[in-house]
């Protein structure tokens, strides 16, 4: 097991390097530069600024300077927010996205697994069709519709929650729902599929023959195996959730990581782009690894190989 984790971590190194090179190359070849958009600068001023940030060196040189700094935890400066380093910006924003992501994940798991279990125990009846149609609905409604819809109902009509901001505990509810419901819908479908597959297995018949009741069948015999699709889905999905969502963070005015992705790209904020992409890459790798570890732990047969 430890060997498996070590191997996976070693494999991550070249992956991260390749991602950093590709991002670097794409960012630098994109037309326009960080100091092009606003009022036209004098050429010598621009040259001075570029020299200050080391942008006058060759691209290869620049990459290795960045890599060297990054390995020491310095992700470079931001052009858009000149007083702050990329490291600080991400350090401030990531915990916010992380918190929102965790709430959203809890919403997704409770609603999704609950609905999936209900549906799977009575397949092809109204108890299956109803939650599954709602799930389909949840998948189809984009978050930029769901967010305002929730605001309309819960902040404007019912006045239960603030419509935006990230100050009080209650401010977490609507964004977490907006993000969570979307994933809940996927989780519901995956739970249903996974459970139905397991419930059709011979060993479930054996459990029934032993006199086990429905509750015991579902939770003792089927749940572990039935949740495997959800677990493998959740590796990458969690990375998405934790890295923040530009849409949800914009709707609710949340100071999270998600908006930096887009803003940085618009502003050609080279180091910020590179920093957010690398953060996201690390998240994906770590969470996929966690999901795989969980999967192995769930299947005794894999555990010993």
């Amino acid at each position, binding site marked *: 097991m430890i060997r498996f984790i070590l191997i996976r971590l070693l494999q991550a190194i070249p992956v991260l390097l390749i991602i950093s090179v590709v991002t670097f190359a794409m960012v630098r070849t994109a037309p326009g530069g960080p100091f092009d958009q606003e009022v036209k600068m004098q050429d010598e001023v621009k040259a001075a600024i570029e020299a200050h940030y080391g942008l006058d060196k060759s691209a290869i040189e620049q990459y290795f300077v960045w890599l060297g700094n990054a390995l020491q935890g310095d992700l470079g400066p931001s052009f858009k927010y000149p007083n702050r380093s990329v490291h600080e910006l991400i350090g401030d924003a990531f915990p916010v996205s992380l918190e929102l992501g965790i709430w959203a994940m809890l919403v997704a798991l409770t609603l999704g697994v609950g609905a999936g279990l209900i549906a799977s125990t009575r397949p092809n009846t109204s108890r299956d069709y109803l939650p599954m149609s709602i799930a389909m609905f949840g998948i189809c409604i984009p978050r930029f519709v769901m967010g305002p819809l929730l605001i309309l109902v819960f902040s404007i009509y019912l006045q239960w929650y603030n419509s935006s901001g990230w100050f009080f505990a209650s401010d977490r509810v609507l964004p977490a729902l907006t993000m969570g419901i979307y994933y809940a819908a996927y989780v519901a479908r995956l739970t249903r599929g996974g459970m139905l597959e397991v419930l059709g297995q*011979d060993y479930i018949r054996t459990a*029934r*023959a*032993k*006199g086990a009741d429905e509750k015991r069948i579902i939770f003792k015999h089927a749940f*572990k195996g039935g949740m495997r699709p959800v677990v493998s889905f959740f590796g990458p999905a969690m990375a998405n959730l934790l890295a923040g969502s530009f849409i949800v963070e914009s709707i609710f005015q949340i100071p999270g990581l998600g908006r930096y992705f887009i803003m940085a790209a618009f502003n050609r904020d080279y180091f910020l782009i590179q920093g957010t992409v690398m953060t996201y890459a690390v998240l994906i790798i770590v969470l996929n690894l966690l999901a795989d570890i969980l999967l192995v732990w769930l299947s*005794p047969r894999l555990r010993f190989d």
Partner: protein
Amino acid sequence: MPLLDVRNLRTYFHTRGGITRAVDGVSFHVDKGETLGIVGESGSGKSVTCYSMMGLIPQPPGRIEGGEAIFGGTDLLSCSDEELRSIRGRRVAMIFQDPMTSLNPFMRVEDQLIEPLMIHQDISKADAIKRAIESLEEVGVPEAEKRIRSYPHEFSGGMRQRVMIAMALITKPELLIADEPTTALDVTVQAQILELIANLQKERGMAVVLISHDLGVVAGAADRIMVMYSGKVVETGETESVFYNPRHPYNRALQKSIPSLQQKGEELYTIPGMPPDPTQIVEGCAFAPRCEFADEACKSGLYELKASASEHATSCKRTQNKEIILTPNANG
């Protein structure tokens, strides 16, 4: 009064391809302590017969259309779910064909073994585990105390079937239904498992329903035999009588195809033709198209079991009317 009395059981599957009459009017009984063998080709309805009694038919598509199965005064087909659950796993236990898929790969053998006790008896987990270790030893699993902590995939097929047997017998049931318990195992292991079941049965005075598509397997173990074809019972009687005095051509054909009774070097005998499509209603005797003794009359009319003096019943009209007399085993 018999331990189990099944009358006119009918179980159909309602599928897109039509209605499969998997079990169509089957009646039989099992007495205390005896072994009833059920034989028939694949698809003849042996498993569905037993699953129906145990409430293990997937519904839908399956539906029990009629009949009763009286066990200890309770009709298993019409009693409440709760009542049925309290009987299965406690008074009636079952083992299945494929020990590789019949044990839960996600649970330790220990937790699966003690489950019938935990469900049906007021017993502490520690005591249940003690009983489980004893029952593993009883079925011949070596190092039971250690092996009980393993997962099913750490056992061989034969050992898994032993675990299944230990699990089924841990509550000391009055009836064991064994659905092709040896079909998935290799020949030497097959004999061991059958012997194990026979020994445990003798010790406990338990009744056994032994299902197999191999008449040879059943003949060695059963007191009585029931031959099924296309969802119906075509012949039933004492093992010796069914074996040495066959009264249905299908039974005789099955005997001819027992591998161990065929001469060495001879090509294996297989019954020509295919069983009928179970979604079609067959006029007359279902076996007639494959039967070497069939005449025109066999293709129409109703075919029902009729017993002769010795309780040996057949649905074949030609033997009932003494038009043909079947000899045991074509080679002899």
